[in-house]
């Protein structure tokens, strides 16, 4: 690890922490969302600097898409999205501070007290190849489980979020063609 990488890590780490704190101190929901995006982009940067360029860039890519979608929901569900009239939406602030402070102290103590083992082996020349080969080889089961989890998420999220079922679309006997949809157009209609 040379000086440039250490400096990059330090800068990314500081920005990640500062923006993480901003997430819970800003008033405007749009700013909150994009502070979180900045923090998670720095996380992706840290991952990339630590020698995992693929996972780092993919994290950034995913977080940008996620946070833009999140901004849409934030604006939709928060009563004061622009934060023009600051208000507190917290409960049990003191307890939460105590719990998270205690967890932080414990974790930091553990980090410095644990006798970490020495580094085993050298990183492979192509780390992307390493993770790909692992996911398609010895870690295949992980990959399969993740795939099924994602499939279940897609189905579950759609079922939960949609209001209209097939009877709303196709009538009581499911024989209404074309389907009765609020928006016309698209494919086949």
């Amino acid at each position, binding site marked *: *690890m040379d000086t440039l990488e*250490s400096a990059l*890590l330090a800068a990314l*780490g500081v920005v*990640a*922490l500062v923006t*993480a704190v901003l997430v*819970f101190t800003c008033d405007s929901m749009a700013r*909150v969302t994009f502070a*979180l995006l900045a*923090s*998670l982009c720095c*996380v992706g940067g*840290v*991952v990339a600097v*630590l*020698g*995992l360029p693929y*996972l780092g860039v993919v*994290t950034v890519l*995913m977080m940008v898409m*996620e946070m833009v979608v*999140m901004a849409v*929901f*934030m604006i939709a*569900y*928060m009563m004061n999205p622009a934060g023009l009239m600051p208000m507190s*939406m*917290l*409960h*049990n*602030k003191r*307890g*939460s*501070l105590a*719990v*998270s402070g205690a*967890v932080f102290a414990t*974790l*930091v103590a553990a*980090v410095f007290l644990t006798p*970490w083992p020495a580094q*085993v*082996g*050298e990183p*492979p020349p192509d*780390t992307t190849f390493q*993770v790909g080969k*692992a*996911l398609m080889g010895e*870690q295949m089961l*992980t990959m399969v489980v*993740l795939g099924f*989890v*994602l499939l279940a*998420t897609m189905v579950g*999220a759609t*079922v*939960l*979020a949609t209001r209209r079922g097939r009877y709303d679309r196709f009538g009581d006997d499911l024989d209404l063609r074309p389907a009765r949809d609020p928006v016309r157009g698209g494919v086949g209609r």
Partner: protein
Amino acid sequence: MTFELVLVLAAGLFCVGLFGALSQQSIVMIMMGIELMIGGIIVAAAAFWHFLAPVAASGQVVVVAAVVAMAVEMALGFAVTTAIYRARRVDTTDMAEDLKG
């Protein structure tokens, strides 16, 4: 020393997220806290891979799993928020405590 500091960064992100997840009322804000906690886990996994066992791919697989967890948490979180808001006009956890013992 860099290794420990990166782990402290991970712990910091995790605990800021934990504070948010515990203290926020709005469901969407709680999800932001959880995202930060998973971000901390990603940093820690990458650090373990880089500084302890770069020869094994397990650290990278943990990062992949964490990223997937983030996506799942987001998708299902918004679906649940949408469902409960549509049914009862509820958008904070304090208004949805029917199952509180």
